[in-house]
């Protein structure tokens, strides 16, 4: 992390036994790892677990003290592979990533890890969400846990429970020689709460000690014939061991009355939402005193047949609340009940929606349906809902995410739009990263996005008979895997694709972490590896680096050249300008200090003259900058709003360059405001202002003379 400090958070990691930790869920998990005596931690940043990576990256001194190794892995595959350290040695290791994407990237390593099994506890912290907070496709890590035999924890949103499950997760992993995943939903990650801390524990064995005393076991290596043995071990030893541990440690929880003829089985992560739905139906209270029995699955895989049978026996019907599809838990519960010959009716996706987030409203509606069918005397009165008037619904606009104020990626897409005006529409293969916002208005550029760093690879099928395809990739995606699967693939297969690599100096979309090509100096990582050198090393002949993306005309000319150049082979444009969000984080305080100390400081911002602006907004359609907005037309005759730039403008220059490149209008101006100007500068300025002032006075008299 170059431009943000997490010192305050790191301090919380130092809390000792008896101290009360207050903070967000994901930081609680971070602290829990240290309390559990973890020996190494890794992962790849992404919402909602970026915070864990960022805090560890800033916690170097603490980690050194404890003898914990931390690594920002190149990608999730690297992070997953790192867990190999727990195969031969009793090392507790944890990695974190955004799932299901990260799990998919890591799947090769995870399959092998799960096959051979682990000696030391191995924990994968997956940030996963099925609802509003999710920015990826809706799939379930649950499927992965099932097919690879990894255990999946879904602790209920309560910091002591979450922290406890991290500790128990390691123990479960060790007791069953199986890697364990712990799922954190977005809201759980950002949920504030408190727990009583315990002391951090030095790992019993450090990674250094393990490396110094290598151990080897042939039967842990994933190759025949050991793999056949692994398959049997999974079923005959690890699975029963895990179920025994979960049962004995009572990792799942029961709430409410012991006897009842109905009940609810819920994924741990949904428990709070369920309790609210019950409360609103008059069946629970704020403190979770439910009047319907709840079996709360903090461990969603494996299920514990004895617990399931005991809970369901004697009940007429049980409601299963399982978010996402397919409904793996419901399927398995059915099997368990059939096998035990229990006649309890299982109600799940027949009353609950098959797809979509289980919000309070959704669970409330499903619960009401369940009760009406199976316990009508307890069903809540249907709540009268006053429909929102249609005119309100039609008036409230969508707010799609877009580029930040002054974002250096904006001019790249403005340039692309200008090239499209000349060459016609292009097939644009987009990638994961901030630049993916190009698919939305006002740019509306990009056809597909196939995964992080896969922009170039996703265009490789197009062998042009005329117009080339264009691929976009960020520097984050490039180092994540784009160098090999995108550039290497294109060179080897003699692709003609044009790849624009957005080199903004950070893995910006995930929070501004450093990557290999970052320009920042980083005390614990090596940076400053130019991307152009890397692509040339891969065999690209046509590579150009543009060091200021805001030069829209140059950007446009370069893209046009790449699209039409007679040269064979892939063309790579590296478009460099620093992520504005991070640049501002770094420069704003420095400039403020410099101004205070009496140094000459220049602030730039743009503006629009409302009397020359005619309200066509072509400039906005080529920009979409948050600071470039509209306001009522000051001219009483004109009826369309004028363009307006507010004071949040950071003076990146895009507006003016676009106005020039697209030959728009003369309304844009740039103001340079000089604090602490030099003496000569003041003298010159005063002189010209005096002359201009005099001319303006005369002009003013003419204007007054011909005025109304």
């Amino acid at each position, binding site marked *: 992390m170059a431009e943000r400090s997490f010192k305050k958070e790191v301090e919380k990691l130092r809390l000792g036994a008896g101290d009360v930790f207050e903070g967000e869920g994901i930081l609680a998990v971070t602290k829990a790892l240290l309390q559990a005596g973890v020996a190494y931690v890794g992962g790849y940043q992404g919402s909602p677990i970026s915070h864990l990576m960022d805090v560890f990256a800033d916690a170097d001194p603490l980690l050194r003290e404890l003898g914990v190794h931390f690594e920002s892995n190149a990608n999730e595959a690297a992070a997953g592979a790192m867990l190999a350290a727990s195969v031969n040695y009793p090392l507790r290791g944890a990695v974190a990533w955004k799932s299901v994407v990260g799990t998919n990237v890591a799947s090769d390593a995870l399959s092998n890890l799960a096959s051979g099994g682990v000696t030391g506890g191995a924990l994968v912290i997956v940030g996963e969400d099925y609802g509003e907070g999710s920015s990826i496709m809706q799939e379930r890590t649950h499927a992965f846990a099932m097919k690879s035999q990894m255990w999946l924890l879904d602790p209920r949103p309560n910091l002591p429970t979450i922290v406890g499950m991290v500790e128990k997760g390691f123990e479960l992993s060790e007791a069953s020689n199986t890697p364990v995943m712990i799922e954190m939903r977005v809201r759980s990650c950002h949920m*504030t709460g408190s727990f009583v801390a315990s002391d951090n524990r030095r790992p019993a064995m450090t990674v250094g000690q393990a490396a110094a005393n290598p151990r080897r076991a042939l039967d842990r290596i994933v190759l025949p014939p050991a793999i056949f043995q692994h398959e049997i071990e999974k079923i005959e030893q690890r699975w029963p061991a895990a179920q025994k541990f979960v049962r004995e440690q009572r990792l799942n929880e029961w709430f409410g009355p012991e006897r009842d003829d109905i009940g609810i089985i819920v994924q741990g992560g949904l428990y*709070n939402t369920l309790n609210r739905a019950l409360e609103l139906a008059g069946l629970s209270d*704020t403190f979770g005193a439910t009047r319907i029995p709840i079996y709360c699955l903090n461990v969603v895989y494996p299920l514990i047949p004895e617990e399931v049978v005991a809970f369901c026996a004697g009940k007429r019907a049980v409601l299963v609340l399982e978010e996402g599809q397919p409904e793996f838990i419901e399927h398995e519960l059915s099997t368990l009940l059939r096998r035990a010959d229990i006649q309890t009716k299982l109600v799940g996706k027949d009353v609950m929606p098959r797809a979509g987030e289980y919000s309070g409203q959704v669970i409330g509606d499903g619960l009401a349906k369940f009760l009406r069918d199976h316990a009508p005397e307890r069903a809540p009165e249907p709540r009268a809902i006053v429909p929102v008037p249609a005119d309100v619904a039609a008036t409230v606009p969508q707010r799609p995410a877009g580029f930040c104020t002054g974002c250096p990626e904006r001019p790249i897409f403005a340039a692309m739009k200008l090239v499209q005006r000349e060459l016609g529409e292009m097939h644009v293969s987009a990638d994961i990263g901030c630049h993916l916002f190009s698919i939305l208005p006002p740019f509306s550029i990009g056809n597909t996005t196939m995964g992080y760093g896969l922009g170039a690879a996703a265009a490789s099928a197009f062998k042009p008979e005329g117009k080339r395809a264009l691929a976009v990739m960020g520097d984050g995606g490039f180092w994540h895997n784009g160098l090999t699967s995108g550039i290497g693939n294109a060179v080897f297969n003699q692709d003609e694709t044009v790849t624009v690599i957005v080199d903004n100096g950070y893995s910006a979309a995930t929070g501004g972490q450093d990557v290999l090509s970052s320009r920042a100096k980083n005390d614990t990582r090596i940076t400053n590896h130019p991307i152009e050198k890397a692509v040339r090393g891969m065999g690209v002949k046509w590579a150009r680096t543009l060091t200021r993306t805001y030069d829209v005309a140059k950007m446009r000319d370069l893209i046009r050249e790449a699209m039409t150049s007679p040269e064979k082979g892939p063309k790579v444009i590296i478009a460099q300008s620093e992520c504005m969000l991070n640049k501002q984080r770094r420069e704003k305080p420095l400039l403020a200090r410099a101004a205070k100390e009496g140094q000459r400081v220049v602030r730039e911002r743009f503006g629009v003259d409302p009397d020359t602006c005619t309200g066509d907004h072509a400039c906005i359609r080529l920009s979409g900058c948050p600071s470039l907005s509209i306001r009522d037309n000051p001219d009483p005759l004109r009826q369309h709003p004028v363009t307006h730039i507010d004071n949040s403008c950071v003076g990146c220059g895009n507006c003016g360059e676009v106005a020039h490149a697209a030959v728009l209008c*003369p309304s844009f101006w740039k103001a340079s405001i000089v604090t602490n100007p030099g003496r000569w500068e003041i003298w010159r300025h005063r002189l010209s202002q005096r002359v201009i002032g005099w001319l303006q006075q005369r*002009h003013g008299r003419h204007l007054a003379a011909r005025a109304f």
Partner: protein
Amino acid sequence: MELVLPDCDRITIAILALGGEGGGVLAEWVQHIARANGYVAQGTSVPGVAQRTGSTVYYIELVRTRPSGGNRPDPVLAMMPVPGDVDIVIASELMEAGRAILRGFVTEDRTTLIGSTHRVYAISEKAALGDGTGASERILAAAERRSRRFIGFDMAAAASKSGSVISSIMLGALAGSEALPFPREAFEDAIHHGGKAVETNLKGFGLGFDSAQKGEAAKDAAPAGPPVPTTAAGRALAARIANTLPAPAQATATEGVRKLMDYQDADYAGDYLDRLAAFVPLDEPDGALTEVAARHLALWMAYEDTIRVADLKVRASRSERVTREVRAKDDQLLSVTEYMHPRLQEVCETLPAGLGRFILHRDGLRQRLEPFFTKGRHVRTTGLRWFLMLRLLAGMRGMRRRTLRYIEEQARIAAWLDLALQAARTDRAAAIEILRCQNLIKGYSDTFERGLAHFQMVMDAVPAALRGPNAAARIAALHDAALADEKGEALGCALAATG
């Protein structure tokens, strides 16, 4: 202090904010206040995309802490608002208040809605070719109607006035609403505790507090009356307006005269009234036709040429406006650079018609001259060189009536007025729609050419439309289609449909 609570002592608060507005800071303040005053507080959010222009919801639940030894477990608090179960909604912007209503968070039985009434326009509203903004009054009406109590005022203006940020105004309004059972000092303590920009935050807080206490309603400033003439020529023209035009059109015509006197001179404004007079006998007593003609004729006659742009750029009032807008202080130096891109076309249009046509019609000459006009110019108008250049250009106003552009524009205006007058004889509504089409012509260079082309396509379709039924509605549909997209796709479809 009255406390809005359901049948349990739980308070739920939803904050709807846009990225960068400090919704997270506000949520932290509220939780700090609650914890310091005997409540358990839990906050959650899905902040991922908020920083990049998106809207996001921060959700907080507060529960009174039990006396110790009560042997009660920790409260189980929800992580997202349930429709109908929200006590307080704070929205940082008007449409976000609308979104809260839309999502069912605001209910008449219990919700205190605290919302700013200013607008931060969404991209769909900003990118429209004309006016794409949503109707604010609908949201204001719904906010009043559907909440238990609505506290709405322009918090962005308050933030700007106090030199603070909108989150501190929102905190002040929350305290001032007395919807939470905590005294004012408790809120101020939270700002002190936060330790950042304490002074300005307290100032903003105070302003928000007072506005909420006053129950300040969203008020529009009273519209300014029509301008009063300041010169003899102005008075003469004002008298002409009063004597010749129907009363409902007079205010607009006065604005038109003022604009054209500023643009050119009193004679030109006189020409304007001459042209306008033709509409009066064809109009009804409501003056609607004349009013629309007055507006759009004035706008067209004040077309944007290089002389006009230069004239506006060199004015003292413009320098003052820029200085104010960028908040430049007295001890700072301000320099202003314009982004101008005059093409050979515009230069020739500013020349006397004969000369301008001569150059534009000779390909060889054109090709030789054009390279000098392909680059955009950075024009520093706070420097003497460029200021003098623009001042000279503005001074060419005297010869405007001889320029190529003037001749071309007057011919277009005449054709358009003829068409409108001809329509007005049989179909006043259609004539109004024809006149309104003037606002399809906007901007400069490519934008201007595109708008003019679309305008011409609509005008070409007018005679056929006039022969059929519902001519006004059909012309209006073409007008709207022309403003639907840049490429003219919607217009093409609409024209094909009209046949």
